[in-house]
């Protein structure tokens, strides 16, 4: 029995900031101090506060060490674990109040969170099935197989109001019901999991796979029982090596313990899961393309209907949900419909995980009840915007979503409200932008992504998005006219209405929503030939304020284009001639601004 556990994050974020070396050092130091049988080091999944990695939590005290280095480990071991003195300088500063250590659960970052899908992430060792079982793992599967009929399972999920967490928010129970009832020929059916998380900035599915892979396995087996399927596939990005490895280990252990395979719990129910790796195409996150890819064909979408519930994988009825959706299932079975529906809004129940990124202090993963406002997420949980800048907008739903402007900061976030204000839930990426972001440039960024990722099967998406990008490019270069803005809008609707799959149908959303809330920025680019945020290079000019310039020449030394030279002007009280920028030579790199200590260079 260990008296203390050190939980070190082994998620992708902390691994890339060196957590494995820290784990090794902990083990070395513990052995050196003869504590190896008293203190256990556990490699867990993500704790969510990725901005502060590498993270280590020491239990039973719950001391939260953040941004630790290999050199700090010795001190933690000899002071905290040997002598019981917390190393205050390494503790996350939000948990230190008046020199006392307070609970991590009371910090702004965690207080408003409600972790269901992420409940085990950062708590258990994902490579040990027994730790999962210790948190009531596989109990829901046992209950379903021994006490419930498939109809009762489907009815429970329907009644819970759970909606797909991967994009459009289709009711999960309805999906299961259709797959169960529409085709009744006794043939093979399939349960698939979409773990092809492609939205830039979204990483909650990766976190669940890395931190709690058994939750996914258990949920897929439950879905298999509900619809009458004995085979499941997880389609996961090859770019997630840690997630793939942990999932492989988890599937192997589930086999060893008889929780996958033949005759599970002696009930006669068979279920197995295979892993299929995606080769990096964004379109393979679209359900029909994903299944085509699993079949071994080129990942391209096909028209619906027939829907996957009728003709899905290998032309058989198929249920396809994403990782976060599945992670909710065992909890709904165990805790009941009432528990789940007590969280959230009228039409969106439960919680949603958001990946916070962009101009925000606490970059990371947060799980909040549906109906939480964007203001709470950005200002309280996210810790606000760095450098005292002002919030301008947040982009949700990645390249398929839209932006939420400051006027909608207090709208409770759920599926329907987000659609009403021109964005969408999507997978839950949430990128925060401040006053230094140009909204036309942001729209162009997302459109560039969809142009690159369009599979090319249908014309509106393949050619339409490219023409749209060219029009946006004209705007950012100051070459567009007001008619071009009308053309942009018309083309957006054309692409939305005529594309084959979700990729094309949602690709214009970032453009439409920025046009809706920030049309004045577009107009400024077109009419005034100015970029109000100072981002679009072609519309910027750099000038030197002669009265502020002291003529030191630092800017001229930095200028890669040799565009800065001396003038005849000597400001009153100064000794050297001021400098000037030759706009014809200037490449607008901004190196001069960074070097000027007197704020004499202006970008307009």
């Amino acid at each position, binding site marked *: *029995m*260990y*008296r*203390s*556990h050190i*939980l070190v994050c082994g998620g992708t974020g902390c691994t890339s900031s060196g957590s494995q070396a820290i784990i090794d050092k902990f083990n070395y130091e513990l052995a050196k101090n003869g504590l190896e049988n*008293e203190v256990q080091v556990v490699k867990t999944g993500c704790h969510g506060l990725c901005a502060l990695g590498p993270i280590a*939590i020491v*239990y*039973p*005290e*719950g001391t939260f060490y953040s941004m630790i280095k290999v050199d700090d480990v010795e001190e933690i071991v000899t002071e905290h674990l*040997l*002598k*019981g*003195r917390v190393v205050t300088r390494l503790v996350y500063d939000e948990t230190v109040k008046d020199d006392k250590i307070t*609970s*991590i*659960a009371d910090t702004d970052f965690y207080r408003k969170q409600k972790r269901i899908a992420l409940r085990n992430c950062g*708590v*258990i060792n994902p490579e040990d099935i*027994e*730790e999962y*079982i*210790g*948190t*009531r*793992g*596989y*109990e829901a599967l*046992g209950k379903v197989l*021994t006490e419930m009929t498939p109809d009762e399972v489907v009815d429970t999920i329907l009644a819970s109001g759970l909606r797909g967490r991967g994009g459009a928010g289709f009711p999960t129970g309805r999906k299961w019901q259709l797959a169960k009832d529409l085709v009744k020929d006794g043939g093979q059916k399939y349960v698939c999991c979409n773990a092809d998380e492609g939205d830039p900035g979204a990483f909650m599915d990766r976190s669940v796979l890395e931190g709690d892979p058994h939750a996914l396995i258990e949920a897929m087996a439950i879905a298999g029982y509900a619809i009458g399927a004995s085979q499941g596939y997880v389609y996961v990005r090859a770019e997630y090596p840690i997630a793939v490895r942990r999932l492989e280990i988890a599937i192997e252990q589930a086999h060893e*313990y*008889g*929780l996958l395979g033949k*005759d599970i*719990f*002696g009930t006669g129910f068979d279920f197995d899961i295979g892993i299929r790796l995606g080769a990096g195409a964004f379109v393979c996150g679209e359900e029909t393309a994903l299944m085509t890819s699993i079949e071994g064909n080129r990942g391209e979408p096909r028209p619906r209907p027939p829907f996957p519930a009728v003709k899905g994988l290998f032309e058989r009825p198929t249920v396809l949900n994403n990782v976060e959706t599945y992670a909710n299932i065992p909890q709904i079975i165990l805790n009941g419909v009432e528990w789940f529906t007590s969280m959230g809004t009228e039409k969106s129940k439960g919680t949603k995980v958001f990946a916070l990124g962009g101009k925000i202090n606490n970059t990371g993963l947060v799980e909040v009840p549906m109906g939480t406002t964007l203001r709470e997420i950005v200002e309280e949980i996210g810790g606000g915007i760095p450098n005292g800048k002002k919030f301008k907008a947040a982009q949700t739903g990645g390249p398929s979503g839209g932006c939420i402007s400051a006027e909608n900061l207090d709208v409770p976030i759920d599926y329907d409200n987000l659609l009403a204000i021109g964005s969408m839930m999507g997978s839950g990426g949430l990128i925060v932008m401040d006053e230094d972001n140009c909204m036309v440039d942001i729209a162009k960024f997302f459109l560039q992504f969809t142009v690159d990722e369009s599979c090319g099967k249908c014309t509106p998406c393949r050619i339409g998005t490219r023409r749209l990008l060219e029009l946006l490019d004209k705007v950012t270069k100051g070459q567009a006219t007001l008619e071009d803005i009308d053309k942009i809008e018309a083309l957006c609707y054309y692409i939305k209405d005529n594309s084959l799959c979700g990729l094309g149908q949602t690709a214009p959303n970032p453009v439409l929503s920025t046009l809706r809330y920030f049309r004045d920025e577009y107009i400024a680019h077109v009419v005034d030939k100015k970029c109000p945020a100072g981002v679009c290079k072609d519309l910027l000019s750099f000038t030197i304020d002669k009265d502020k310039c002291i003529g030191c020449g630092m800017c001229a030394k930095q200028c890669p284009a040799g565009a800065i030279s001396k003038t005849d002007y000597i400001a009153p009280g100064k000794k050297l001639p001021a400098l000037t920028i030759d706009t014809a030579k200037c490449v607008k790199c901004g190196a001069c601004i960074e070097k000027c200590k007197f704020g004499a260079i202006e970008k307009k």
Partner: protein
Amino acid sequence: MKSLEELKAIREKMQGKVGFRKEDAEGMRVVVGMATCGIAAGARPVLNAFVDGVAEAGLGDKITVTQTGCIGLCQYEPIVEITEPGKDKVTYVKMTPDKAKEVIEKHLKNGQVVAEYTSVK
């Protein structure tokens, strides 16, 4: 594994271990002084006796055994403090693993303070 009973057995075995990883302000806390003075006086075997004893008694999810720095009464080390919400703190002094077993039996399980080991005024 072929039955729910086996699953339950693993769950119960692991619950004490995993349940330990939460901060529980409600339950009873056993705090062992583990500063240099405490360690020198033999606090480590005492701490381990509490950890093992609580686990054996199946009280792992109700009682937290933890350590702290110097309590300030170095001549009475090893010192163990037991706190429970709504009750006065009980301080045991000059503890040994054997005394720890007795405290687990009487105090932790049955709520009877072992007066003879408590602090001298």
